């Protein structure tokens, strides 16, 4: 499956990835609408938070709005989503996001736009071993 891989050692916390992400998906430069989050942790340490495409949210969604696409990316069908935010609370990596301006949550879909723009080479799209099949997928 395709995932966005982060390298904290290379990140310079310029926040460009957050800006291009929010611009790509919400047509605004607004870091609180980004699906990747950079945090300066102090002592020159930087945290990079992005969805691992683990798919645990698939089994939490009450309407079946979350599923995995053909390349293994976990996506939200906004038409089915009822904005309950269960997936936000139950995300193991805290990388399902929501914003006051929207009813539905949002997440990284491994589009790679941020990786292309990252000046430090701290982001890359890579193909990794598929995540374990979820209970929901097994039942289909």
């Amino acid at each position, binding site marked *: 499956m395709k995932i966005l891989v982060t390298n904290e050692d290379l990140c310079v916390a310029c926040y460009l990835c957050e800006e291009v992400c929010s611009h790509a998906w919400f047509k605004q430069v607004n870091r609180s609408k980004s699906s990747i989050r950079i945090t300066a942790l102090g002592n020159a340490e930087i945290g990079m938070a992005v969805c691992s495409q683990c798919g645990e949210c698939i*089994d*939490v*969604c*009450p*309407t*079946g709005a979350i599923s995995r696409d053909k390349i293994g990316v976990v996506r939200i069908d906004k038409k*089915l*989503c*009822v*904005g*309950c*935010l*269960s997936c*936000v*609370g*139950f995300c193991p990596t805290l990388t399902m996001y*929501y914003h*006051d301006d929207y*009813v*539905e949550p949002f997440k990284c879909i491994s589009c790679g736009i941020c990786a292309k723009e990252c000046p430090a080479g701290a982001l890359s799209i890579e193909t990794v071993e598929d995540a374990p099949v979820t*209970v*929901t997928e097994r*039942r289909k």
Partner: protein
Amino acid sequence: MPAPLITPQRMEALKAGHQVLAEFHYEPRPVDKGYAGQTLYVNVSDNTIAAKPVDDRMKHTFTGGRGFDLWLLWNAVTGKTRWDSSENEVVISAGPIGGTTQYPGTGKSIAAAISPLTGTVVDSNVGGYFGPLLKFAGFDAIEVQGIADREVIVFVDGNAGLVQIMTAPEESVNTYELAEEMVALFGKTPEEKRGVSSVTSGVGAGHSLIGCLNLSFYDIRRQVARLKQAGRGGIGTVLRHKKVKAVVVKWVGLKGDSLHPDDLPTMQQVGAKMHREIYERDPIMFTMRYDGTNHLTKVMNDYDILPVHNFQYGAHPEAVKIYSPEFVKFFSLGIPDGCWYGCTLACAKCAEGFEIYTGPHKGERVTVDGPEYETVAGIGANCGIWDAHAVLEANFYCDTYGIDTISFGTGLAFAMECYEAGILNKQITGGLELNFGNAGAMLEVLHQIGRGEGFGVTVGQGIRRMKQIFAEQVGADPKFLQDIGMECKGLEYSEYVTKESLAQQGGYGLANKGPQHDEAWLIFMDAVNNQIPTFEDKAEALHYFPMWRTFFGLNGLCKLPWNDVEPAANRVDYKGIQAAKVPEHVQNYVDLFRAITGRTDIQTGEDLVAMSEKVYNFQRLFNLKMGYGTREHDAIPYRSVGPVTNKEYESRAERYDKQLRELAGIDPDGMTTDQKRLALRRYREDQYEKLVDAVYKRRGWNEQGIPTLQKVRELGIDYPDVVTLVEKHS
């Protein structure tokens, strides 16, 4: 096969039987700040349908949910109305928070009616999608009045703006089939199916007074209409008497802002925080997501609170056989189990492919929800049935026959004790050996209720009537029956032993509808942790907690996310009773209520309690209107207070001897068990009366338990007929 198969031929047969008797068209309009702004009135006697406006006074006085139910029912009935009178209604409402998707436990419906068991108003809180979908369809509540001359369905299509009463001669009566038929008839795609919810009952509800309502919710993964029950008080019996097979609502289009709240971001913030708290805390607290409410069976057995053999004892060595793991092995886990969207506490567990051994479904593999703790404790421990499969099978049949598992379990436990005491025998029971532990006999009683025959019909009348029948027809000692028959106000007790908690004796005895634990559960606070030692302390708890918990019923809320999970800091930041109130969660509800309704006058938890106090007192006065609601109706059976028999006394002799010595000032040495038991009884019964005095005083009621005129005026419930009623009884 996950659900009963509805063949195309069957569908055609169902449709062919439908004749529209009445139609009502309305303009669908969005919910505004949690309210639809009107209620729906349906009369199946004369086939009239109408919408009634909801004004600001109704909102501010009764809030919604149970409050709206009570107000609508109050105006529909007189003091002479009986449960089977035409003017009696089944009323269902969700309340302003009902239908929230962001916060767990926000999809409850509250049903009410004049009860066949108690003769007065009863309310019952239930999951499933009906109440919220009804609101989004355009109605804050539905009243179903009248008695149809043939079997009918009431159908509300919220997208089309259409309400119909139609004949339904071909549909099943039992819910297991009927709920699936309603989904198949009114929903085609998965999205439409989850937009359909039905209120149904079953044949057992028609043959007993302990009928429940089933409210459905369509599970898109298991592809089945799952069921939650409004169990208490026989509301299903009322629906069956009306010849209403189903009340169905359809509304498709749910989104996170469908309530059109005043402040969506606050709802999202509070909700996301709560989901995270459940993610982190539930696995190390009560494991509701995994075990459901039956995790409690072990806890109650450990603390000597699990009702065993008709509440004689509080624990049993074989209880381990009905602990959670014995049921979890039947469940399909790892997928959502909330009975409304966004309930991540997800206690509604589900057994798929469960094999049935008896009755009309013998040999089939079925889907069944549960069992809840109450069912396990009532049908299992209380009847001495240490057999998980039998309990779950009984759960299935109770649901599909439309029977309340609590009244069934407590009622059968009473009959079993009568059998073991020699009051009943095989001749009287028609050959049933009703010893504690006889699972086969338990299931046969249930099937007899379903068929409307045999001794099962007697059990289905409930304990109050069984006491009368056994005294009059079998010559049993009425005093002994009164002592061991676990009912108050005509309603069977739910499943907690209260002998060691005076406060919880009041929690049950002083509850408006009868002994159900949804008003107060004070056993740990009182008997285990000794945090409310004085009468005044207990009275304060019996003011605060019933009022606080009433808030859930007014707003379409489940109680569980309030205190069946707690923030990590709760027991650090707060101690004792304050910790038991879970202040952070109370604030969540303040935030939610304000965010949805935009009511800026609601600022603290005390404001929520004040909201409830209006409705709570109104319900007490409703009891008065129906000929009850006074002190004698708060009397409780001695089995809930202390040991009725010497055997019971001797089973905990050390505890009781100590209490005689230390609390009653009586030296038990040299006394016979009879003497000690009677001395303890005098002491404990006196304690209960003192508790009642203290609680009435705290609640602003006179010594007869009637709210004073001053209190009625303070609360703003001084409607002319309320004032007249109070003055008449002053």
